[in-house]
């Protein structure tokens, strides 16, 4: 199964007139894995998904599924099934006939395909509604019908276009678990487009972060979250502070870079760096200690508390540094309340310099299309 459901995307580009929606993307999605594609709206993730499904034809490049070139394979005949964002259930057909639709296309006799459709509906616990039409169903039920309709073709690859976005928070978390369970059970490749970071991190074996039509980083969720490739990824995935600094020492085992405020940061991964070069480092917000008495001059930040937000297990403390940048600390709640910071107070924070992560990518966009 795994080999036949591997997706290999080679140099794929998609132009709409002058707009390049997807720009020379190379990406391998291992067979049987759960892949989440994430990025701000307009980053090309949905276009890429639709090209895998065959609803769009690449302007250039190749898409292989299980080593077969899909260039000339018709939609519906390439072993993929797409689950649409708003489900796109046929309003004039009963649930049974909705699910049985692809079997009708294949020319199966009515009784046979209805029987199979009912089995599939049973599998998503909707057999009791088999004769209803979609408009009589709740959002969560419609989602399960859409899933059943997609799965009845026994696809090698299931493509999901923002499958959870139309559900409320509670249902979303439940369906998330169900999707993961289903993928484990079926062992086929799931490609899931989302714009919600926690969803991608919770579900995926492989997270693909996109921006402006290109793949910025494709890796495991842990890698993406812990070792982001670029400032853009660090900011978009969240949980990181991004610091800008100039390389000031490279001769020792550990290099040094100095920020605009004179603070020195350790740089562990110095390969290829040059003196005086501007670099960016990320440091996880939850690895920072607060309230050091003196202002440290190494691997540290200090600033005025702008806001504190209680988040249950931790407190999000927002600082504004002397250089006017935002610096955020996730402080353990017990620790915070033992010695709370107040808005307007100036505080010092520091961390273990070994945790500084060099961001090699140059993409510094915020990931928010409104801010560009």
């Amino acid at each position, binding site marked *: 199964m795994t080999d036949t459901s591997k997706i290999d995307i080679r140099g794929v580009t998609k132009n709409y007139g002058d707009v390049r929606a997807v720009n020379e993307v190379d990406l391998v999605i291992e067979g049987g894995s759960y892949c989440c594609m994430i990025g701000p709206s307009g980053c090309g993730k949905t276009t890429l998904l639709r090209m895998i499904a065959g*609803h769009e034809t690449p302007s250039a490049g190749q898409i292989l599924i299980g080593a077969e070139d899909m260039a000339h394979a018709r939609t*519906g005949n390439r072993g993929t099934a*797409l689950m649409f964002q*708003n489900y796109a259930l*046929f*309003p004039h057909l009963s649930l049974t006939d909705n699910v049985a639709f692809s079997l009708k*296309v294949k020319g199966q006799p009515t009784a046979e395909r209805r029987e199979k459709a009912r089995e599939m509906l049973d599998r998503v616990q909707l057999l009791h509604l088999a004769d209803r039409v979609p408009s009589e169903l709740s959002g969560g039920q419609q989602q399960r019908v859409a899933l059943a309709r997609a799965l009845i*073709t026994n696809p090698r690859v299931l493509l999901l276009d923002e499958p959870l976005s139309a559900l409320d928070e509670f249902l979303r978390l439940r369906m998330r678990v169900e999707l993961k369970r289903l993928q484990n059970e079926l062992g086929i490749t799931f490609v899931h487009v989302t714009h919600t970071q926690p969803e991608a991190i919770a579900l995926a074996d492989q997270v693909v972060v996109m921006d402006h039509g290109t793949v910025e980083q494709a890796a495991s969720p842990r890698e993406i979250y812990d070792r982001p490739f670029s400032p853009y990824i660090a900011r978009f995935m969240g949980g990181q502070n991004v610091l800008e600094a100039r390389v000031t020492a490279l001769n020792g085992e550990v290099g040094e870079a100095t920020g605009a405020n004179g603070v020195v940061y350790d740089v562990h991964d110095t390969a290829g760096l040059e003196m005086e070069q501007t670099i960016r480092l990320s440091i996880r917000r939850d690895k920072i200690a607060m309230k050091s008495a003196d202002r440290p001059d190494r691997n540290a930040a200090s600033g005025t508390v702008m806001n504190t937000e209680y988040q249950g297990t931790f407190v999000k403390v927002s600082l504004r540094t002397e250089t006017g940048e935002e610096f955020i600390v996730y402080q353990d709640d017990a620790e915070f309340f033992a010695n709370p910071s107040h808005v307007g107070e100036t505080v010092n924070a520091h961390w273990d310099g070994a945790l500084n992560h060099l961001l090699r990518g140059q993409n510094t966009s915020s990931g928010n299309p409104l801010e560009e």
Partner: protein
Amino acid sequence: MSASNAKRGVSFYLLAAFFTLFVVFLYGPMLIIFVLSFQGETGGLTFPMRGTSLHWFSDLFSSSRYGDLAGGFRRSTGLGLMSMTITAVCCLFAGLAFRSRFWGSGTLFYLCIVSLVVPGILLGLGISQFFQILGFRLQWWLSGLGAHLSWTLPFGLLIMFAVLNRYDNAWDEAARDAGATPRQILGWVTVPILFPGLIAVALFGFTLSYDELPRSILTVGGKNTLPIEISNMTTNVTTPALYAIGTVTSFVSFAVIALAFGLIAFIQKRRARA
């Protein structure tokens, strides 16, 4: 504003009275001629009724004073059915085409608007002269049909736009994803989903053609349609037979409307059934 259901202010009753008056204004005169068409044999064009009879209805079909009513009715029904079919089919596909921008789409749209806007008799003049310049004879089923289509198609297209507003293109894609061919998508998804709207387009196609007068006058050639016959009657018939033909043709229209609405209601009900 007394918009809440809880309390209906004076304005509600004033507006309701106005609306009722408007409905009476719309239907009242028609009801009068329906009643007067059953006028007794000696009765005239106005009240009082001198008895009731079906005299004027039978007079319509037996007397030759009223022109070729039966032939006009046949031709009008035929034209109506042809216009209905062509309008429904052309507007369905054109509506689907207009979902994407294509070269000339703006021109085509404005041509349709122009056709709605120009005086009908003038378009009739243009069509008849165009046919004559080409040396074609004017025929009700050719030039007449064309004139009717110039009226029904733009209307049908506008209604089709409204119908397609509620059509989700993802339905097409979902069918394509299941492997359906374009023809299967059309037959199993697009047309069934749009069917109630298509009935509405067809209804317009039939009734607009069935009652069309200004575009027909110069384009039907020697054989008249029913509205032309009736319009001739308005100037030279001074008996309740005029009302009788009005009752008959209105009855046909009402029957067609009822049929269309019945069909739409039936389909909607079948879809909503549990």
